[in-house]
């Protein structure tokens, strides 16, 4: 785009709307909700960008993608150039374009967003990534082999990104994944209708093209410990990206009743095991007629929307605070509401009721109000005395958070962890207390986001490279 043309640029105040499946229809299927821009739409959206010299958007992105540059190339219909530019920093653009909380990252600080709607950076990113997947992967350069071997434990976004960067630097990388497919939460947690599994697998295939060896069905700490990988199997360094996969429960009576699921189980059965295709696929699931999902984050929204698709007549989000405090992405809350998910806010259960056969029949709940702001400035919920009531439900999905799985920390010598069990790793380098061992993603930070996990994987790859090549 020439300078002259830019001067004359007319501001388009609103984002080009994202084509989406009709809410009524989509609440009954597992197909992707957001359909993606057409070529003309993406060019129109890319042309909204002001190409700001100070690049605020770039600082808003945890991996500092050169956003103005890839948007400019997209505006010029040079999609190959755009995706190449994007991939300099981002190993999983088709994933990020779909699930990044853009409104609190790159798009939050976009100049256009001050007065109007920001540029739909994520949607453009998704378009160019899908373009590459549709047109064949572009060849990627890798450095000559260094002869060094790195083990990556866990194949979520942190592990995948770390592996990609290290492979490109010429190291021989093996990923060990506990489940039967790679992808971590991208495969077992985030539902098909938000992130099609073929998209995730296509991005992983591009990693394998780089020479990364992925060993599924390999639980580190069981078939081999981190120490054994280094001492017996000759790995020169290890990256731990095992995520936050341990489900928390409420610790209230009745939680082991039949019909109570952790969100992890509910979503794993559905996404990873494809229970929505039962009996063609063998894994069953039982979503009842009236489902209550406890929590207010992305995981809760995904569970509530999944319940509708599995045939629930009513699907409720039961959340202790008010709507403003819900940590889920705005778009997901909106989508959930459009599809018919209902919200019981300022409400929390005190016990789960069941019949003689142990099947859930309801929840005894308390209503809450927001009290005085606490030290952190957040208004904390206070139960209202005497407000007990019973909510009749037949299924409860607990989505109140996850902690780190203790398997790897417990079996690794000299690895420092926090009181909550998270691995302690240097923010700047990803280095842990054990020489040659690095960590990043949810296992370090607690449940966070895809892009932050990727950022941590990138940081660690850089440090591992220095460690292996003797630069520091």
């Amino acid at each position, binding site marked *: 785009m020439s300078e002259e043309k830019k001067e004359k640029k007319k501001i388009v105040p609103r984002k080009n709307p994202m084509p989406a499946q009709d809410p009524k229809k989509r609440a009954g299927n597992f197909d992707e909700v957001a359909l993606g821009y057409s070529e003309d739409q993406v060019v129109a959206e890319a042309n909204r960008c002001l190409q700001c010299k100070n690049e605020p958007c770039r600082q808003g992105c945890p991996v500092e993608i050169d956003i103005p540059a890839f948007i400019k190339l997209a505006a010029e219909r040079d999609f190959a150039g755009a995706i190449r530019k994007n991939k300099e920093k981002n190993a999983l653009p088709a994933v990020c374009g779909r699930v990044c909380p853009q409104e609190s990252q790159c798009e939050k600080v976009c100049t256009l967003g001050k007065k109007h709607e920001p540029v739909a950076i994520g949607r453009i990113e998704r378009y160019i990534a899908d373009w590459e997947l549709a047109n064949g992967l572009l060849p990627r350069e890798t450095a000559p082999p260094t002869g060094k071997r790195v083990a990556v434990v866990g194949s979520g976004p942190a592990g995948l990104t770390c592996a990609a960067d290290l492979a490109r630097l010429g190291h021989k990388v093996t990923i060990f994944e*506990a*489940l*039967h497919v790679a992808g971590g939460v991208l495969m*077992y947690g985030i539902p098909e209708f938000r992130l099609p599994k073929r998209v995730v697998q296509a991005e992983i295939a591009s990693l394998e093209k780089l020479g990364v060896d992925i060993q*599924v*069905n*390999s*639980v580190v700490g*069981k*078939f*081999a410990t981190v120490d054994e990988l280094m001492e017996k199997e000759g790995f020169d360094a290890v990256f731990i990206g095992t995520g936050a*996969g*341990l*489900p928390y*429960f409420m610790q209230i009576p009745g*939680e*082991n009743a*039949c*019909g109570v*699921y*952790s969100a*992890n*189980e509910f979503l*794993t*059965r559905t996404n990873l*095991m*494809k229970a929505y*295709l*039962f*009996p*063609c*696929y*063998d*894994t*069953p699931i*039982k979503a009842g007629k009236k489902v209550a999902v406890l929590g207010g984050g992305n995981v809760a929204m995904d569970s509530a929307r999944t319940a509708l698709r599995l045939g629930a007549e009513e699907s409720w989000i039961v959340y202790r605070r008010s709507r403003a405090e819900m940590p889920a992405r705005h778009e997901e809350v909106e989508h959930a509401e459009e599809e018919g998910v209902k919200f019981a806010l300022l409400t929390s259960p005190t016990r789960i009721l069941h019949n003689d*056969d*142990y099947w859930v029949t309801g929840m005894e709940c308390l209503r809450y109000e927001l009290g005085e702001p606490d030290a952190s400035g957040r208004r904390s919920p206070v139960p209202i005395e005497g407000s007990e009531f019973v909510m009749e439900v037949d299924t409860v999905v607990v989505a109140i958070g996850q902690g780190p*799985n*203790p*398997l790897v920390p417990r079996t690794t010598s000299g690895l420092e962890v926090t009181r909550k069990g998270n691995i302690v790793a240097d923010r700047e380098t990803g280095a842990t207390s054990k020489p040659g061992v690095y960590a990043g993603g949810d296992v370090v930070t607690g449940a966070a986001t895809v892009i932050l996990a990727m950022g941590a994987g990138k940081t660690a790859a850089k440090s591992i490279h220095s460690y292996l090549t003797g630069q520091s």
Partner: protein
Amino acid sequence: MYKILKKEVLAPALHLFEIGAPRIAAKALAGQFVILRIHEEGERIPLTVADFDRQEGTITCVFQEVGKTTRQLGVLKEGDSIMDFVGPLGVPSHIENYGRVACVGGGVGVAPVHPVARALKKAGNEVIGIIGARTKELLFWEDKMRAACTELRVTTDDGSYVRKGFVTDVLKEVIEEKGRIDLCLAIGPLPMMRAVCDLTKKYGIRTVVSLNSIMVDGTGMCGCCRVTVNGEMKFACVDGPEFDGHGVDFAEMARRSVIYREQERQAVEVYGESACRCGCGGGRQ
């Protein structure tokens, strides 16, 4: 892919597989289990490590056909392969010299009891093995168990072999006869483990049971396998599968294990009609 190197039919609907899995065989210990998935549309199911051969790199599993997956498994032959096979999972049995130990195996439970009995004997224990089955033709591994134990007693529910009676009847006799038992291990159907626990509680004998709750991942990620032990929530796949039998809430466990009864029935019906018809590509054999 994991190859079936050997198949044996131990009894009607009861099979033994030796599966090539060197990495798992190198590490497996008594009391641990594996999770397998036969093919792309398959369910992940847990099976106990009934034996392992570190040299040959094999894991032995013994399974009973109870539903669709185990039936599909039963159809496989030597030389066929299983898509996914992961382990060794769970905490290995705690092996030490307790003194005199009773190892009770009921039905298919004889298989998982075997490596533990063997390890306990090796650790210096006097191991009294008690195995039982509904009827003579369902009994297996009498020879292997005899070798693994100091002394072996056998029973059948219907009296078609050796004697008539439940394993608990034999256990009671052993307790009375020997006077002192330092530890009891019981693996088998839930009602059997429960009955053993009721009995040993009266005599104050510490009892370990291996819980076969429904599982998905087997790594502590889903919470599907949760059980209540001594009033606390435990995950059978990572905290177990062995637990203090006297603390287990068997009533809850029994209810949780039939959550999918309706679907399990449906799966078997559809399986009987062979491949899926909806065109989704599932239901392959």
